[in-house]
């Protein structure tokens, strides 16, 4: 039985990996096995059918809870990879799942294997859909870029700067000749440099974009044609058991998604991988604003907050909706909820309507409230939520028969429901100690 001597991957509550500083995700592949076919193998585990994430620093493997709940998420630091084998095309490879092979050297200081272990050759078996060639290309790119060394250099150089700052140094030039970034002028200079480099890269990007724009019309038409084909294809097949068809259809779907066109076959394919990851990311993000908003928050507010936090690569309202609706499939503690009025909110699963109604009942039985009712702002203060949310709660309470509305030139207010307290057969009857009696006591009779 081989042990697992790979560094573990920390996951958030929603199953998203916790990334290192400066680490960026580059590629996703689903249905991936990681195994070592060498004999003997003392330390590389056999990881079956998980999600493989290629980042700038590591290869992350996250188990699919449905398949294998016992294995934990593991990683292979790119730094410990000594060689990536080129893909050999053979007759066998045409029919089998694509495979990628690389060699991993033990590196105990990175958490890979124990001292004295041997290097092993690891095989990545891509059983799910996914562009293996693109993955391999990115794999090479990231491995050669050695992004982890810059992070390490940055960490050690920042400690160097601290040391240098300790010793005497005046003037704007530091010992190695580069301009020092000190004081306000330093900050300004840094900003300036950043803007200049961004500007240049934007210019480069726009060169390509201008070329694209001239082709834009043709591209859009082509994409539309593909989408129509997908739609008609999915409608004509009633029982798609043809794997190859499904594979190429899903590839097309990913292509379209990357161009920004909404996937037309989402219901059949159980959500593209993009939406699944987005869904988990959103679930993590939502926690803090949700608590701050008192456990219930407007969907529109989350849309603004989430996109503002992302900065670039903004998501569309449709993406957001799809991501929220996927929460049902994962084990996250939040749900999307639609009120009768059409307002959509995100709230904690633990949120109890009954609790809210109890609080409302208490509020509305206070003497002031008995006399002049409550407005959504009054409720907002008591419930600790936004006035718009409070209004939804009041309307829910009304539909449950707890409250009644009073519409007048003074505005929209709610009172405790007295109608249910009034006797059907004798409208002058007032029971002692009832709500009706309390109301009468609180509202002095006039005239």
């Amino acid at each position: 039985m081989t042990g697992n001597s790979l560094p573990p991957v920390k996951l958030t509550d929603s199953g998203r990996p916790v990334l290192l500083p400066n680490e960026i995700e580059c590629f996703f592949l689903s249905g991936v096995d990681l195994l070592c076919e060498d004999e003997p193998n003392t330390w590389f585990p056999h990881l079956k059918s998980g999600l493989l994430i290629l980042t700038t620093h590591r290869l992350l493997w996250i188990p699919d809870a449905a398949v294998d709940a016992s294995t934990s998420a593991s990683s292979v630091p790119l730094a410990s990879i000594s060689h990536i084998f080129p893909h050999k095309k053979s007759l066998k490879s045409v029919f089998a799942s694509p495979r990628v092979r690389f060699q991993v050297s033990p590196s105990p200081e990175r958490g890979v294997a124990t001292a004295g272990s041997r290097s092993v050759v690891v095989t990545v078996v891509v059983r799910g859909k996914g562009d293996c060639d693109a993955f391999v290309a990115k794999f090479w790119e990231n491995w050669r870029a050695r992004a982890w060394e810059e992070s390490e250099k940055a960490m050690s150089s920042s400690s160097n700067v601290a040391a240098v700052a300790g010793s005497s140094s005046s003037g704007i030039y530091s010992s190695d000749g580069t301009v020092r970034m000190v004081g306000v002028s330093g900050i300004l200079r840094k900003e300036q440099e950043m803007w200049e480099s961004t500007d240049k890269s934007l210019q480069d990007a726009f060169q390509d974009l201008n070329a694209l724009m001239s082709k834009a019309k043709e591209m859009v038409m082509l994409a539309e044609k593909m989408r129509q084909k997908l739609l008609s294809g999915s409608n004509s097949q009633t029982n798609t058991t043809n794997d190859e068809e499904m594979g190429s259809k899903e590839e097309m779907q990913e292509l379209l998604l990357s161009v920004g066109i909404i996937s037309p076959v989402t219901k059949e394919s159980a959500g593209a991988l993009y939406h699944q990851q987005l869904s988990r990311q959103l679930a993590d993000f939502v926690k803090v604003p949700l608590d701050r908003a008192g456990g219930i928050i407007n969907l529109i507010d989350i849309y603004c907050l989430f996109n503002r936090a992302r900065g670039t690569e903004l998501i569309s309202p449709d993406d957001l909706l799809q991501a929220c609706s996927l929460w049902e499939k994962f084990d996250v503690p939040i749900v999307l909820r639609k009120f009768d009025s059409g307002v959509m909110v995100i709230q904690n699963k633990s949120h109890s309507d009954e609790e809210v109604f109890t609080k409302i009942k208490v509020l509305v039985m206070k003497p002031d409230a008995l006399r002049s009712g409550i407005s959504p702002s009054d409720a907002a203060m008591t419930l600790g939520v936004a006035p718009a949310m409070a209004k939804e709660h009041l309307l829910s309470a009304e539909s449950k028969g707890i409250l009644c509305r009073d519409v007048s030139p003074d505005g929209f207010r709610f009172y405790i429901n007295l109608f249910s307290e009034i006797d059907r057969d004798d409208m002058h009857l007032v029971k002692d100690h009832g709500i009706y009696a309390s109301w009468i006591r609180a509202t002095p009779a006039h005239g």
Partner: protein
Amino acid sequence: MQKLGEFKLPHFFNYPPYFTLQPVRDTREKQIQLWKELILDYCKTQKVFVIGLEEEFPLFTNTVIERSLTFEAREAFLLALVSEGRAEWMDKGHRKCLILWHRIQEWADILLQFAKDNGLEDGVVTIEEIRFGTESQGTELQGIDRTILNRALKLLEQKGKLVVFKGTSTDDEGIKFSV
């Protein structure tokens, strides 16, 4: 307790939501029921036979809490009365409503009783006398609405309990009982 003229109003007349047509079905049903009762009660004691939707009706406004029923609400409550047979629209445009705090049949019975009480089983009496005569003083027939009276008379005529005959003018219209 608040009063409207001599009429004793129930406590909930000062409950602001009472004057807003409630959207929730169960609540609205209760609200409608209370308004129906109140309207009938008021009309009976104040001898009001007709309610005009576009006219001022004291019951539909509460100056103390500064609330008034909207047109929609008034229509809803009167419609409820009509559905129950306790009221009738007098015009196609549904602007005037005849309030039947006694149903026509009940009025007919009251008329018959009146005849018996005053020894008029075979007698003759004018419309005027029924409405404003000394015998009807203090009874429910006093000041009865003409339309309602005519309907009750027609009903009894069909049953053969009386005959309506015209006099020289409308004031002379009379009936001969044959109870």
